[in-house]
């Protein structure tokens, strides 16, 4: 099976600071992978490279068949439409309600309103927020905001979901619920999911594949017990 993500000697620098130092790994379609490591190890930088929010300085990084080193505008847009992203700080638009926030990827892709309504309903059902489509972000709790973020990430049935510290701003109970939701989504949709976290408890409990980074290098690639 062809890899969904293939990184060969990827280097990323900010000035003279080498953040990712020649890292190599692959992710197969349908995998669930935790990206762990201390702050500054390069987790977020790697996720930003995967969604082409940053451009690598050396090496080769292929995501869903796109070579991220040399993408044109329309290719970049196509790549991003196949990747769902969940942010630590949710990144919801405060002047739009929950329905509108979740609908954004479909609206951007040019889907018609009837289709959008149906798919948003299903996504909100999946994350347990079907009763609050008209609420605004300011009216929701942290856990609910992250559920909205998840609904937005899965709405367009992406081939890859990237979650950057999705539980970083949540209490332990809510954090577990969000991770459980991600695992459920993975099981139900067979989507490839990469979660950057330093929540060791969650990682140890689930025992899925773990890619550990330290000072920009991969120090461990532990296969999950279910793989």
């Amino acid at each position, binding site marked *: 099976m062809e890899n969904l993500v293939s990184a060969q000697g990827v280097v990323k620098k900010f000035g003279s600071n080498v953040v990712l130092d020649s890292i190599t790994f692959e992710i197969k379609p349908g995998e669930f992978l935790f990206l762990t490591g201390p702050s500054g190890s390069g987790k977020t930088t790697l996720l930003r490279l995967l969604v082409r929010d940053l451009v690598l300085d050396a090496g080769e990084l292929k995501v869903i068949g796109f070579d991220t080193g040399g993408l044109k505008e329309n290719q970049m847009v196509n790549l991003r439409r196949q990747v769902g992203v969940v942010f630590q700080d949710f*990144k919801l*638009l405060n002047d739009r309600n929950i329905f509108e926030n979740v609908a954004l990827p479909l609206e*951007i892709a040019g889907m018609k309103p009837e289709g959008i309504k149906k798919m948003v309903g299903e996504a909100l059902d999946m994350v347990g927020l079907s009763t609050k489509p008209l609420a605004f972000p300011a009216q929701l709790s942290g856990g609910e905001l992250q559920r909205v973020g998840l609904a937005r990430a899965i709405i367009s049935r992406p081939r890859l979901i990237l979650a950057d510290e999705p539980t970083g701003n949540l209490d332990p109970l809510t954090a577990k619920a969000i991770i459980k939701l991600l695992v459920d989504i993975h099981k139900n949709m067979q989507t490839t999911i990469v979660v950057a976290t330093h929540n060791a408890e969650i990682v140890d409990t689930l025992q899925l594949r773990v890619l550990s980074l330290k000072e920009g290098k991969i120090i461990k690639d532990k296969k999950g017990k279910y793989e």
Partner: protein
Amino acid sequence: MNKHIKLAFSRIARAPYQAMAAILVMSMTMLLAGIFLAIGVISQILLVYFETRPQINAYFNQELSPQPQQIELIKASLLATGKVEDVKYVSKEQAFEEYKQQNASDSLLVGAVTSGILPASLSISVKDPKFMREIAEDVKKEVGIDEVRFEEEIVDTLSHWTDSVRFVGLILVGTHGLITLLVVLLVIGIKVSSRREEISTLRLLGASKRYITAPFVIEGVIYGVAGAFLAWLVILLGVLYTTSFWKFFLDGIMVLSVSNIMMFMVSVLLFELVAGVLIGSIGGLIATSRFIKS
């Protein structure tokens, strides 16, 4: 497109004071542009009037009544030079009638002149004021011509003034256009900047540059259209209020009819709408693309 228009209007509604400021600045500039356009049109009317009216008057000997053949000969020789636009013969009787019309309000002046006292004349229009002296010298040599008068200095001054008006007009229109563009850039730039986070999120969700840019460009167009209409309304009120002055000022030069005023106002509206839409959209486009690039 419809959703972008809705989004642009909702953004305007969410920041009404910012939008109001943008529209007012746009309308101020449009007002200045409209006023200058009016000055330009009036200058053009005056210029055409002075350029096309007879500039040389050649008077026949008062004792003589020129024969039609003689008049035709002089006309033909003048037109043959290629430097004369038109030659019109004014008989003694026509001269007297014109005098009476011009002084109709002063019975003393009308009574002091009889029909035989004014000489017959030729009114000559030259193609270019620079031929005036040469043609005047030629016509002086014709038999029966007693005196030749021409307004060389007035036409020279007017030509110079008109050239200056055109030059200053270009500079002013150019400067105002640039100022307006910068103002729109600034206003939309502030809006783009305040939505920096939102734009980054939209880009990560797969939004194209066009998707991001469209609502801001439409917002600029809305400012342009609203500013143009506002300025046009002020100009319309100003024109209506000063119509009697313009009728007096342009008396004898052109008839200021309702259709003339309507045509002028429609032209101003079209000019301002096109200028507003162009400036608004270009401003929106530059402001957004600068941010997306960065």
